[in-house]
Structure formats: C-alpha cells, structure tokens
C-alpha cells in the first residue's frame, strides 16, 4: 500500500502556553516542538501496514524549515521519505489544500492525518482532504483493517462506536486506538543514522486559500483561589456547591 502520513509540528504536551507580539503569536522561545501526538499514532499505523503488506510510507508537512527536525524524527522512526511544502500554515483549509494539491495525482492508497493538532485543534484536515480529493474519510479512526481495496473501520459517534466500510483510496484521522500507546516507536541509533540520508523534498506552496486568520490569543481567566475543606466535613462542601457555587 502506498501511504501518505500528514504530520504537524506542535508544542510538547507539557508546554505552558504564552503569547507574544500583542498576543498575536504563540511564544516559541524555550518551547520543545514534537510530532503532533495524534499524527504519531497514524505514522505508527502506516509503518505496521507496510511491515505486514508491503508498500511505502511518505510523510508530508506544511511548514517552514524550522519543522525539519520533526520531519527527520519521522524518518528516523521509519518513514521512507518526506515532503515539506514550504509555506506558513494559515488555517486547516490552507493546509488541506496544500496537501491535496500535492497528493492528487500521486496515487496514494491511504492518507492518514491526526484527528486534530494539539495547537489550534481545528480537527478538520482529514475530512477536508477527503472532500478535496473526492474520496471517503473517517475521523477519528480507532480501528482499521484492509482486505484488498476494501477497508473496514471503527469510528467514534455520540455514545459509542460505529463500524463502517469503504473502498480505498481514502483518508483516516488517527488517534489512540488505531494503534496502542505501547506500539509507538522511539527512534533508535540506526534509524537516526539512516534518516540523514533519506530524501526530504521541499515543494513550493501552491495556494493561499484559507477561511480564517488569527487576530488575538487569550488565556483563560485565572482561578480566584481554592477554598480548602476539612476531610471530615463533607457536608460543608455540599453546602458550598449548592449555595455558593450553585452547581448542584
């Protein structure tokens, strides 16, 4: 199977979020960037599919050269080659258009993208790709088995799961469940050495189509402080919840 995995570069999950330039930009100083965790489940699934059924795994990223370290990491984990579309992402519609323009005539059987990125949480890229390429899309995808060109998938719906079928080519949005946490891979020395000679091709931007632009960021209002209640006095807590907070 010929697989394309979309990866994005996001602040590490432990990052304290701060902004700069009058709150118009995310403050990158001192922040560790990682492969978006949802994308990492997708990359791992792609590698497992390749190992069991053959084919190739290409990773694609829309971004500037500052993303090269996370792209090299994906190559060190096991992707065969990488594409970086040299463009500063505007929103999900922009990113999906860049990827769809690149992918449309390349004959990928399966395109995988994280169900959302943990920075702007648009959660739209997998389905946008499906629509732009006129192929089915399932996101979040928490189970995927393929037999020839027939794929059976599990997705989340209100209150549980739904099983669906579709024919390749298609797009799936990855998260935990597609593979398990303990199946994620850490690059080893051999992988890191090999990644240096794997191709990372830089492609020019083809579009600036987008639907939104950032005006200003805000942090949630700080809590006023925590009222401590003695463990022996749970009635007091119930009273506060009922009469002060008025939430029960």
């Amino acid at each position, binding site marked *: 199977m010929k697989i394309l995995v979309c990866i994005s570069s996001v602040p590490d999950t*432990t990052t304290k979020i701060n902004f700069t330039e009058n709150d118009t930009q995310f403050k990158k100083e001192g922040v560790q960037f990682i492969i978006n965790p949802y994308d990492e489940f997708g990359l791992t699934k792609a590698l497992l599919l390749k190992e069991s059924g053959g084919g190739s795994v290409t990773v694609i990223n829309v971004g500037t050269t500052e993303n090269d370290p996370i792209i090299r990491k994906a190559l060190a984990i096991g992707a065969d080659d990488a594409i970086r579309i040299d463009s500063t992402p505007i929103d999900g519609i922009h990113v999906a258009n860049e990827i769809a323009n690149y992918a449309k005539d390349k004959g990928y059987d399966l395109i995988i993208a994280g169900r959302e990125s943990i920075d702007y949480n648009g959660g*739209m890229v997998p389905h946008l790709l499906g629509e732009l390429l006129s192929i089915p899309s399932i996101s979040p995808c928490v189970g995927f088995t393929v037999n020839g060109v027939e794929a*059976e998938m599990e997705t989340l719906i209100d209150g549980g799961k739904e099983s669906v079928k579709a024919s390749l080519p298609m797009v799936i949005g990855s*998260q935990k*469940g597609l593979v398990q946490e303990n199946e994620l891979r850490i690059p080893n020395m051999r992988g890191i050495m090999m990644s240096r000679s794997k191709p990372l091709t830089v492609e020019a931007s083809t579009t600036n189509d987008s639907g939104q632009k950032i005006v200003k960021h805000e942090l*949630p209002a700080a809590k006023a402080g925590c009222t401590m209640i003695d463990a022996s006095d*749970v009635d007091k*807590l119930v009273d506060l919840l009922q009469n002060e907070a008025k939430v029960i």
Partner: protein
Amino acid sequence: MSVLVYIENTEGTLKKGTLEAVSYAVELAAANGSSLIGVSIGEISNDELNKVGNHGLSEVIKLAGDKVNHQSAASQLNEIAKSKGASTVVLTNSWQGKGIGPRLAIKMGAGLVTEAVELPQGKTIKKKAFSGKAFVNVEMTKEKNVIAVSANSFGLKENSSQVNISEDGTTSSDTSLQHVSYNRDTSKLSLTDAEIVVSAGRGLKGPENWGMVEELATVLGAATACSKPVSDADWRPHHEHVGQTGITISPNLYFAIGISGAIQHLAGVSASKKIVVINTDSEAPFFKAADYGIVGDAFEVVPKLVEAIKKVM
C-alpha cells in the same frame, strides 16, 4: 442571506449540544437580521423536533436519511444551503458535526471555525485552542462560513416559538461510506454534554475501586471520566479519557478524585466552571486550578460525600 442550523439527533433524540447550537443560531440570525432555518436529517418524531421551539427556532425542514453519516449529511445540507441561499451554517461540535463541517465548508466554498465559544463580533469569533489551555480570536475571511459550536460554552437560551415543520425530499448522492454496525449505549450521559463530570485517576489504585465513583456520578446525575494513565492501563475505556490528547470538556462542575493535575490533564478540563479536587497529597498541582479542595483519602471521603449529597438531593 439566511442562516441554517443543523438539528443533530442521536437515535431520534435531541441532545443538549444540539439545543445549544440552536440557541446560538437564533441569536446569530437575530443579530444579523437574517432568516433562520433548522435542518433535521433522519428518523425523529415531530414531538421531539418541537423542542427547538423552546429555544426560538420556528422553521424546520425535515429530511429523510437512514444511517446518517457525515458525508451523506454534508451533501444534503449543502443542497438545502444552496436552495435557501444560506451564508452561514451552524453545527454542534460533536463527532458528527466535526465530520460534516469540513465537507460542507468545501462544498459551499465557505470558511470553517470549530470549537466556537461565543457569537461572532463582526467577522471575529472566539474559539478554543491549545486543547483548552487558551482561546484564539480569529477573523473569518470568507463570505460564507460554517461554525461548529463547542458544547457547554454558549449555554441554552429559553425563547419560545411555534415550530413549523416541513418535509423535503432532498437525498444524498454520497454512498461511498457503508454502515456496518453500531456499538453504543445511549442510556449513558455523553461526557461533552454533561453538566457535572466525576473523574478519577491513579489514586484509586485499581479498576475494582470505581464503584464509588460511579455511585457519586449517579447521585449527581453526572457523567464519569478518567485521567490518561487510567485509560492507558485499561482500567477505564479510552472514550472516558479527558485531557490534552483525550476529550476536552467544560461542565459546570468537575470532580477530580485522586488525580494530581498534570498540565496535560488540566488542559482538557480547565474550562470547567467549578472544580473540586480530592487528593491525599496537599501539594498536588491540581489544587492550584481548583475552586474547592479536600486533602484526604478518596476511599473515606467519597462514600461520605455520596451520603451527604443523598441527604440534600
């Protein structure tokens, strides 16, 4: 120019998230002086649909649909948007809404804002970002827009109106996804809709100890949730995992029992209006994000709390 709102149903019932989207669309249309039409797809009784009248929606188009999925729904909604000249479509930010939004936006040539928490001010709209750690105000740069409203953010607005339901024969031409089976339990309150959530972490020591958590949830009419280590260890199902890489929630009241409060967990729950933390460790970082705290052993505190709540409810 008109506004459409998608009236999502779950096995024929309208969830709170749907009625919040209706409330949002009613105020949006009023602010813009636009007409507003609700669109329902699939099997649902007129009695149930009439509930949108409690929130100010009066025009409803009912479309048939079997095993509605995001692709078929997007295709039907686009047809209605076209025929009604709609410039804005409002959805819930549910799993189905998240699937419909992107497909519909491309079909309509519209922009897409998900996780919206407030009405737009002009073309600027506020949405959640960084998995609950922040918000971002974005300018919608296209003329047409699809807006998915985050659950428990806008709230329900009471606004009585008479509902006029008309049936319409618009069907979907998209059959590329085939339904196989459902595996769901709709008797359980959904986590994103719940006004109270009771959540527990590693402090509970093992899955066999969740009985008291479920009991507390039952007396409060709450949904249950858990931290990432708990779902990773398979003590609880993955769909209960709240946090940065799980579900982001914003209930009125969140109970964190035996959860230390790692930054990744706080990201998913910090939008809760009130937070109660119960932890043996007085230094647990969660107390800094809490409104009410008890330093104590969950195995003693929670059963007493259940009894105390039973007395008053």
